[in-house]
């Protein structure tokens, strides 16, 4: 996948030189390994900043909201689905975009890399390289190698839309989609718990949350001018790290993503304390699929599930 870089640069340079786009949104190397940063390239001479490797997990659709210029954007499967969501929610026009599609084989979970080393030890990771499906991690004490497939982000391991759903140009041939994936095994496990155990599960899950809102900020769906957590009159959600306030926040954050979340994993990826808040968004994803037959971001023609209705929608829960 890392050989995509040349092709991305070539396409981006052509687009900028021909004036087809005003800028290209992609990734550049971060200051530490595994931390690629979003990068806005506006001049052809800066094109060499753009890179592509297995650490481009952030969702670039997040940077398109309400943009007015013509933009070339690099899109993995999940980014492209979020671009579709953006287009149907009128946050950007399709005509403004030149989508450089990237068939994706999943991104690497930096926490899994860190856990290859003894926990607690302050081993600094100096570099992470990739070769023939293996990941080579170098520290000052030496090298460790592991299978790439074992180090994928959790959402990437469950991904069934690796190829972009819309694009203007692909950087490589589409990759094979993963088949026979059971996306909701853990969700069903929680569903089967008795209420008190569920409550305890989520208590434990969110106990580390510091309410930094990184999950909200990294999420391409979260673009309200005033977020519900910032409202103060009336103030629906407490701002403290009280467990109930934290739960209310996570509940509403997930609920706002109902029928829109593509499970790109940005929220979990950016969480400084590694909370798996995707168990909430994926529950909604599962319900949307089971109740309304909906998968987010697959078509520009269909309206999202909470924007339409059927007269025979499920209502066994209503008296």
């Amino acid at each position, binding site marked *: 996948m890392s050989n995509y870089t040349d092709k991305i640069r070539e396409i981006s340079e052509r687009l900028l030189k021909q004036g087809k786009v005003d800028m290209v949104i992609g990734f550049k190397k971060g200051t530490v390994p595994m931390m690629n940063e979003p990068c806005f390239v506006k001049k052809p001479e800066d094109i060499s900043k753009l890179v592509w490797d297995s650490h481009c997990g952030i969702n670039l659709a997040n940077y398109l909201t309400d943009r007015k210029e013509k933009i070339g954007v690099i899109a993995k499967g999940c980014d492209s689905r979020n671009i579709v969501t953006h287009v149907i929610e009128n946050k950007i026009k399709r005509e403004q975009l030149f989508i450089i599609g990237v068939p994706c084989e999943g991104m690497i979970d930096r926490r899994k890399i860190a856990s290859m080393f003894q926990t607690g030890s302050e081993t600094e990771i100096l570099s992470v390289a990739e070769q023939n499906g293996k990941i080579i991690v170098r520290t000052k004490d030496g090298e460790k190698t592991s299978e790439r497939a074992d180090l994928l982000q959790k959402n990437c391991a469950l991904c069934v839309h690796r190829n972009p759903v819309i694009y203007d140009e692909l950087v490589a041939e589409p990759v094979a989609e993963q088949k026979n994936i059971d996306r909701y095994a853990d969700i069903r496990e929680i569903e089967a718990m008795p209420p008190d155990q569920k409550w305890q599960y*989520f208590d434990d899950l969110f106990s580390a949350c510091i309410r930094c809102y990184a999950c909200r900020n990294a999420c391409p769906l979260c673009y309200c001018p005033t977020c519900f957590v910032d409202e103060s009159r009336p103030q*629906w959600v*407490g701002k403290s790290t009280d467990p*109930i306030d934290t739960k209310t926040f996570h509940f509403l954050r997930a609920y706002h993503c109902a029928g829109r979340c593509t499970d790109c994993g940005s929220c979990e990826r950016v969480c400084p304390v590694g909370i798996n808040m995707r168990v909430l968004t994926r529950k909604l994803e599962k319900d949307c699929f089971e109740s309304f037959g909906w998968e987010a971001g697959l078509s520009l023609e269909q309206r999202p599930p909470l924007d339409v209705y059927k007269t025979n929608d499920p209502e066994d829960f209503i008296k």
Partner: protein
Amino acid sequence: MSANWEPKIVAFFCNWCTYGAADLAGVSRMQYPPNIRVIRIPCSGRMSPKFILSAFRNGADGVWVSGCHPGDCHYLEGNYYARRKFSLFKNLIEYMGIEPGRLHFSWISSAEATKFVEVVTGVTDAVRALGPHEKFVKTNVKVA
């Protein structure tokens, strides 16, 4: 739980139907449990998840949302949209550990005073059986 504990239930009623049914039950002198605190909303489509969470956070033992039958909405389709939101909401809040039986939904037209009495009795019994709600309550909250 003290022996004379009574559940507090916050009831959100659509102005055009269930609120009318409650009114009709009242003027017809029908008997029903006095555990509901009624909040009138313009349409069940006006319900926001924040309202329900807020009720629970402030100590409600149960929440009940009721609107017009599908097809009867004063605004033609408000309750159809609401139905989709409610279905996801109910699943999610029960997924997080609120007991099934705390949150209720119903369709009651303004002529159905008998159904209103049946449902309010049913809702109160269900919440009473569960006992006081302690999970989503913000304990140190100061309500002005």
